[in-house]
């Protein structure tokens, strides 16, 4: 017993010395920025795309001379997609690594748990994906958000409903049951009411289910015109495959971003992915400088396609670098002030943090509607950025 205690003590001591030694030796001439992403766990795929995009942008920025002669150093922590782990990761970054600011933040639940820590410690945190509305509704001056909140995801889709799909009258909403889905579905119900649509059902599900048929059979029985789904990636694929199995034929299948825009969706849902619509925040064809270039470069380096999550991370890195560059000094307070006065055009769109409705420090951006057409994710709405004509209503399964 005694021996093992001594041993554990020794190991801890060595570990402590080591961690201090390492962080102090690098600290000299770099600016440390902490990033929290889910690199393992069931959201790891999203974290991976963002991680790669962060590193890609970091390389470009440091190669171009860094920030006022200093290089940026990213300390990337894994949240494993769990709020409690995310929280301790942020605490570690703030107190042990002493980062000047924070970035990343995937999944609303994890981000929600972490931003409070950042605010308490007065460390600026640029959230680039966590999209539950309440993240920027607390009036916390150290929390900034690059991406639009989830309630605004279906912006382009709403205008599509008003102008093209005017015969859609009834809606079924299926959503994953964490903060992202709950928040998104509630706001979508409000939007439907504003558009004069009748919401027949709204149901959550636990992500990772094997069988969605009990849920889908209810949708089928209610005969909704529009099925709106807020799902992470593999649930999205299964939902579509099982809709096909059940011969569920609404006029429109629409995904609320997240899982429905990833290349993996097409790979896993295969034929069932065809003609599915999705809201999205970004596509390579958006009219922002650098958007297509980012996509091409990502494909060239990593040999796989990227999508809006990657663009968010890539642009967030540029926003971070820009704020650090303009900050009067490298204290957390000055960096926060610099971040607040950001006015930058990025590959993800123009970035400017404003206050509106209940939100503070929120970037406002238009959204887009995409559709999977014969294996390609085409932008179909609004018309001025469309890469292909939309197909509406989507053909019945038996007629494909």
């Amino acid at each position: 017993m005694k021996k093992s205690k001594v041993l554990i003590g020794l190991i801890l001591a060595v570990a402590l010395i080591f961690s201090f030694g390492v962080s102090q030796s690098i600290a000299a001439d770099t600016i440390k920025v902490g990033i929290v992403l889910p690199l393992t766990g069931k959201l790891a795929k999203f974290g991976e795309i963002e991680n790669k995009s962060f590193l890609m942008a970091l390389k470009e920025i440091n190669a171009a001379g860094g920030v006022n002669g200093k290089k940026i150093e990213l300390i990337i922590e894994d949240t494993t997609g769990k709020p409690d782990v995310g929280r301790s990761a942020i605490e570690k970054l703030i107190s042990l690594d002493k980062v000047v600011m924070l970035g990343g933040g995937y999944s609303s639940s994890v981000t929600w748990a972490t931003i409070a820590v950042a605010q308490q410690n007065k460390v600026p945190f640029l959230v680039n994906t966590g999209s539950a509305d309440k993240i920027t509704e607390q009036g916390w001056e150290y929390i900034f958000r690059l991406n639009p909140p989830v309630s605004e995801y279906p912006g382009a889709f709403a205008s599509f409903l008003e102008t093209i799909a005017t015969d859609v009258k009834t809606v079924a909403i299926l959503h994953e049951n964490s903060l992202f889905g709950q928040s998104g579905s509630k706001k979508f119900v409000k939007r439907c009411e504003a558009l004069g649509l009748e919401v027949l059902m709204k149901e959550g599900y636990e992500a990772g289910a094997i069988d969605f048929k009990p849920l889908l059979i209810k949708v089928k029985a209610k005969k909704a015109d529009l099925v709106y789904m807020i799902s992470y990636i593999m649930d999205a694929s299964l939902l579509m495959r099982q809709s096909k199995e059940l011969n569920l034929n609404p006029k429109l299948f629409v995904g609320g971003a997240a899982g429905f825009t990833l290349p993996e969706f097409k790979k896993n849902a295969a034929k069932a992915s065809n003609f599915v619509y999705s809201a999205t925040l970004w596509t390579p064809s958006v009219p922002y400088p650098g958007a297509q270039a980012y996509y091409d470069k990502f494909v060239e380096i990593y040999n796989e396609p990227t999508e809006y999550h990657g663009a968010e991370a890539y642009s967030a890195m540029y926003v971070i670098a820009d704020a650090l560059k303009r900050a009067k000094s490298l204290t957390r307070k000055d960096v926060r002030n610099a971040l607040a006065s950001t006015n930058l055009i990025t590959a993800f769109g123009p970035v400017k943090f404003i206050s509106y409705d209940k939100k503070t420090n929120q970037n406002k951006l238009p959204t887009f509607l995409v559709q999977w057409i014969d294996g390609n994710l085409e932008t179909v709405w609004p018309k001025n950025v469309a890469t292909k004509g939309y197909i509406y209503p989507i053909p019945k399964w038996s007629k494909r």
Partner: protein
Amino acid sequence: MEVFLQTLVAGILKGGLYGLIGLGMSLIMGVMGIINLAHGQLMMVAMYITFVLSHYLGIDPYLSLFVSMPALFLLGVVIQKYTLNPLMEVDSILPENQVLMTVGIGMVLTEIARFIFTSDYKSVRTSYSDATFFLGEISFSIALVIAFFIAIGFTLFMFWFLLKTDIGRSIRATAQDKDAALLMGVNSKRITVITFGLGSALVAAAGTVLMPVYYLFPDIGGPFTRKAFVITILGGLGSTVGAIFGGLTLGLAEAFGATYIGMAYDDMIGLLIFILVLLFLPGGFKRLTKI
């Protein structure tokens, strides 16, 4: 009515598969008295084997049963022989050391899978993955129906195996009373090794037949370990018939819960039954079936 029948079908088909997942754990738990918390992770390994065979060699998932099951049997044997059995001899602070060891093994397997295959989602697409047939208005997924019959087949086989073969009898003897079995000349160490191998092979079968309809990534094991645990408790330790009833109960409860209460309460419903069984039927369905 259509909704009710479709839910019933979904519940039974899923339940059969759950039964197969729980069967292996039940066997291991019955014989060794430990919870194998790497059960889902072993299933994950089998799923990766199926994926590799199908993706690189074009072998049909059902044929790969002949590879994944022996492979997992061997893996199970190695785990029991070289990691769990040595622990039995060590006087340790915690008697649950073996359980902790299985947790560790589960983690190691997950991280090895991540190292080799990254966190990417994989799936096996076959011509029958999305195929269905209709009886009236009720849709049956062909892959799930096949999975169901394979699960039932394995359960019947295990039932026969435990009742009629020498090794089967030794396994039951060890499960009932280890010391007595030892005195009767049963090599209980060898039996534990074989049992762990069998349990792993059974969950490998479950993973392989699940592959055409589901998907795969390194962290997929955890939720299935949890499900297997619930099924084992429902069915009763070491009971083959109990495992299949436990699986069906869980499958049906989840399906009907999803239809009539809400799919968001999926896990809650399963765990509620778990608690009810612990309270009112400790020992599980085995108490009713006596087998």
